[in-house]
């Protein structure tokens, strides 16, 4: 199994597997970077409506080709059909949202289910009418990689390259619209057109991803990578870039994994690899991750307890809180029996001094940014300049003798 996986990773697992792996990686890059803008615009679910709306187009394109005496399985024509019906679905969502009182989530739900339902009816009809054809259109639901041709990979590569070029050209206005649509409009960006462009991008990715991962799962490739990337960086361009990389990595590794054992569904494995990256990021991302947040909270809590403990020592109050006691003990500020050590008394006096300096500072800089930075914990030396502190000390008078 492992060696099969390594073979697949190195594209040594056969022609078809190599094609699938490369195609999935390219698709992942296009989906990850293209999905980012819709995610930042908080309209990620529109992609779900778009994806489901592709199905009737696939059915109708197939029927038309058969009616014209063709084979019906010509991929570019099927994708063209899917793009057309996805476009209609997209416009329907847009129209319902802007022209009626219904909200976008309602529009998405309605379009998604109606188009998908219609598509399923068409697929059923196709199966009965052309039983000899074994059309294999169900593959568009969950993706199928078995009969992937070189031409299919070329379609993905071309579509992906066009999508990436599109992102490169429109990244600036798309970012403006996602962050601040009113300002974008006042800067001369046509917000409506840019919104349509974002969704058009998602539509293109969906269409080229139909064959490989299927319309139900392609949505995950559009949403999971940007959400994952967002956990690692605070800059839009990096979210786009990282999201593309995460999408590409998920596609490649997922395809290799599914090739390393028989009967593993490629699309689903790709999505699960993406999810694994997301779960790891959610836990371990440096600033926005769960673990980092927990550690920050704990550190903050310890700082609060330390400060409160020192103030209590300075005022000769008894300390009852177990955590406060253990914090002070650990630093050698109090003895086992909670009596302050030499060091503890010095630290306590300093904290008290800091507190009274802050009291003066708050009066002195009422409303100013300096006093806005008082959080009850930061030593005043870390916020104010030496001169400002000297001025405060002048007002405070000589320090009280440490007792």
């Amino acid at each position, binding site marked *: 199994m492992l060696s099969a996986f390594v073979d697949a990773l190195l594209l040594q697992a056969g022609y078809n597997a190599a094609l699938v792996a490369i195609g999935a990686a390219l698709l992942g890059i296009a989906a990850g970077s293209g999905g980012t803008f819709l995610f930042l615009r908080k309209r990620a679910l529109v992609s779900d409506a778009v994806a489901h709306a592709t199905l009737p187009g696939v059915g109708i394109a197939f029927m038309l080709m058969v009616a014209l005496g063709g084979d019906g399985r010509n991929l570019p024509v099927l994708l063209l059909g899917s793009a057309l019906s996805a476009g209609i679905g997209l416009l329907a969502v847009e129209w319902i949202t802007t022209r009626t009182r219904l909200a976008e989530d309602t529009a998405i739900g309605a379009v998604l289910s109606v188009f998908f339902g219609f598509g399923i009816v068409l697929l059923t009809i196709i199966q009965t009418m052309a039983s000899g054809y074994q059309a294999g259109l169900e593959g568009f639901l969950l993706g199928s990689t078995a009969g992937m041709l070189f031409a299919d990979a070329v379609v993905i590569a071309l579509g992906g390259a066009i999508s990436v070029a599109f992102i490169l050209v*429109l990244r600036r206005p798309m970012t403006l619209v996602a962050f601040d649509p009113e300002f974008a409009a006042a800067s001369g960006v046509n917000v409506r057109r840019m919104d349509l462009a974002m969704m058009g991008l998602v539509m293109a990715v969906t269409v080229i991803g139909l064959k490989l991962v299927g319309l139900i799962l392609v949505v995950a490739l559009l949403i999971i990578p940007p959400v994952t990337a967002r956990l690692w960086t605070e800059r839009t361009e990096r979210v786009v870039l990282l999201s593309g990389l995460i999408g590409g990595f998920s596609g490649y590794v997922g395809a290799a994994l599914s090739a390393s054992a028989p009967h593993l569904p490629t699309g689903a494995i790709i999505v699960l690899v993406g999810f694994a990256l997301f779960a790891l990021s959610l836990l371990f991302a440096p600033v926005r991750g769960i673990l980092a947040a927990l550690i920050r909270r704990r550190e903050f809590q310890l700082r609060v307890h330390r400060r409160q403990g020192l103030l209590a020592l300075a005022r000769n109050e008894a300390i009852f809180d177990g955590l406060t006691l253990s914090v002070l003990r650990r630093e050698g500020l109090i003895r086992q029996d909670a009596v302050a050590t030499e060091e503890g008394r010095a630290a306590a006096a300093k904290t008290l001094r800091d507190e009274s300096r802050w009291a003066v500072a708050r009066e002195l800089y009422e409303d*100013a940014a300096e006093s806005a930075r008082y959080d009850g914990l930061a030593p005043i030396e870390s916020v104010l300049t030496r001169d400002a502190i000297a001025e405060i000390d002048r007002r405070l008078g000589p320090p009280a003798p440490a007792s």
Partner: protein
Amino acid sequence: MSAATLELASDEGRQIAHPAPAESPLAVRELTVSYGEKPAVFSVDATVPAGSMTAIIGPNGAGKSTLLKAALGIVPRISGRVLVFGQPLAQAMHRIAYVPQRASVDWDFPTRVLDVVLMGLYRELGLLGLVRRQHRERALACLERVGMAEFAGRQIGQLSGGQQQRVFLARALAQNADLYLLDEPFAGVDAATEKAIIDVLKALKAEQRTVVCVHHDLATVTQYFDHVLLINLRKIAEGPVATAFTAENLQKTYGGRLATAHIDQLKLPTV
């Protein structure tokens, strides 16, 4: 605006104390805007004088922000015309800088303070122009003017409300416009920010640029502005603070919502 025009403007500024009232920076005629079938702004005529600091004043829901947004083409208008420096909006849009309400954006957006200011250079950079050092330096200089240069690398969500407002102002400064439209720039900011903002706005006025603010604090109107536009769905009054910002006009604008005692406290100019 090119450097040459800028120079020209400041040259004129030195020579003429009162610049000739050429084209008004912003004039609306019979402007009506409506959300659904309920007008938010009804048939408003208004002219903002060049080089003025104009406050748009009125109670909540009076259509102040809507008027501004309609003037910018952000919300569609039902009827009426908007002229910017005597031209239709589309041709003069590049001469306007806009500062939206702070609450209108998601501050958790993945972007840094400097990146937000760089957004003000969009018209200049276009789709493919690279952000060069001179652009970054200009953005930093704009941050400097609002006292936020040291925060350039911060994610915008880590700022206080007042700091966020100053970043928005810096972005508008980067646009280097002739007409500044600000939507409630003083709403919910600290005193230091209020001072920083008003200083920048007064500096803009000194550079012969025109400033229009939606403003809600009646107590500071006489101190900050020289021109007012009072609206409550319709226009109630417009003109210099000395003649238009009167107790009578305020009573008409706010109706019973403004107690007479409150008006007395404003130390209004007596007519």
